[in-house]
């Protein structure tokens, strides 16, 4: 299969590879996919709780080149966006940006799911924290 230049660029120079402290209340972690399906994405966001802006994003992906590129691109896009803006990223945006062929669309879907899962995790932590704060009071 021929890969687009953008997929090759992300594969050869993946952005924001790594891990954030998943126990931190400001960090949301999304892990989607399954090893037996051939792809697992872990995507993390670090959010400024004051502004709701994503200050950092990291990923690690087990999967084909298109899955790696989709998650690498997602972390690039996430940085600087607010949590609400991040939720507006659609898999089709990723498909268009990376020129993914039809058989690789599921990679972009997985990346969108990972974004939603990471932000969902962050939001859950925030609500728990505020309820804990109430309890302390």
């Amino acid at each position: 299969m021929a890969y687009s230049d953008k997929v090759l660029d992300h594969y050869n120079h993946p952005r924001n590879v790594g891990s954030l402290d998943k126990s931190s209340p400001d960090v949301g972690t999304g892990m989607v996919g399954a090893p037996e399906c051939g792809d697992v994405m872990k995507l993390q966001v670090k959010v400024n709780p004051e502004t709701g802006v994503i200050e950092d994003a990291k990923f690690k992906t087990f999967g084909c080149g298109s899955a790696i590129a989709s998650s690498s691109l997602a972390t690039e896009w996430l940085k600087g966006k607010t949590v609400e803006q991040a939720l507006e990223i659609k898999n089709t945006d990723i498909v268009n940006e990376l020129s993914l062929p039809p058989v690789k669309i599921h990679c972009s879907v997985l990346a969108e799911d990972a974004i939603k899962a990471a932000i969902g995790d962050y939001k859950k932590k925030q609500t728990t924290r505020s309820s804990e704060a109430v309890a302390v009071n």
Partner: protein
Amino acid sequence: MKLPIYMDNHATTRMDPRVFDTMKPYFLEIYGNAASRNHSYGWEAEEAVEKSRKQIADLIGATPKEIVFTSGATESNNLALKGIAQMYAERGNHIITQVTEHKAVLDTCKRLEKEGVRVTYLPVRQDGLIDLDQLRDAITDKTILISIMYANNEIGVVQPVREIGKIAKEKGILFHTDAVQAVGKIPVNVVADGIDVLSLSAHKFYGPKGVAALYVRRRNPRVQITAQMDGGGHERGMRSGTLNVPSIVGLGAASEIAKNEMPEESKRLRFLRDKLKDRLFRDLDEVYINGSMEHRLPHNLNISFAYVEGESLLMGINDIAVSSGSACTSATLEPSYVLKALGAGDDLAHSSIRFGIGRFNTEEEVDYVGDKVVDVVAKLRELSPLYEMAKEGVDLSKVSWTAH
């Protein structure tokens, strides 16, 4: 060293230039129809075909009259299975095969099932080999044929063919073997191995594509096969169609070279294969060999690099031509059914690479491949959430994944 390096010799091989040279005159000079009985063009073509028949027969311990030319191993397998099922329909309607056969056998069996033939698909053990007791148990008084491949095209394991031949003989059942990956690579002898029908293909051992043969035993027992195409009654009535003389000459030449050079060549290929294996095991953790190492073709290495997905690995080693059992590299988007049959789990199938070292690979190339694979696997593991989790001591089999 020329890049990309071709190391996918189970898919096909480069034609040996000596084979090509032997074929050349049969395109422009000796172009007669081997079935033309009344002029020298025909006679010369026929002579060339008969020489090839002898060369092939010598390679597998057969006699020339037992060789039937076909267009490819897919045709040979179809002809063997369908031809025997039809010819022996009165005797029985049961065929025994196994789950890691090539699709040319499996899909032919599926077709026969639709036509009322009963087929038993034996499982394989974790080492990729069938269990002979299970084979014995599967035999019924309706069994007419056992079809078990000689060596597997993905994991290179060599089935206990001689024992299967003995069992078949004891029970008076015919034994067909798809020997496409074995012929020309390891010693195959239809007499010693007790084989009744055998498929082989030229392009798997440095001959041309589009030509193959079916060995059909003529004595003890005399095997009969119903032709699958109607026509001029060539090849003792088993396979009509004008003979592809240049390619048949090539198949013969490839057979002769293989016979003469096999002892030397298999030693060299085994050395290179083991060198690559040792390199990968030395510098990487969590690598697994798929299939028996003991009962294996000397030039095959099928390895799973845990926590690394096969297609992404191929992408990183794009100057090396190899194959992966990963779903992403297959047309069906399913991981290799051969690796799944070993029961090692789909994740290891997704992480597998098949190396097929061939006649034209050099030690320098093998060293380059070793370096490159080690580098890329290490890089992809840095990227792999699974490797990170495994290193943290997480049991990945206990994680509840969101399958999609």
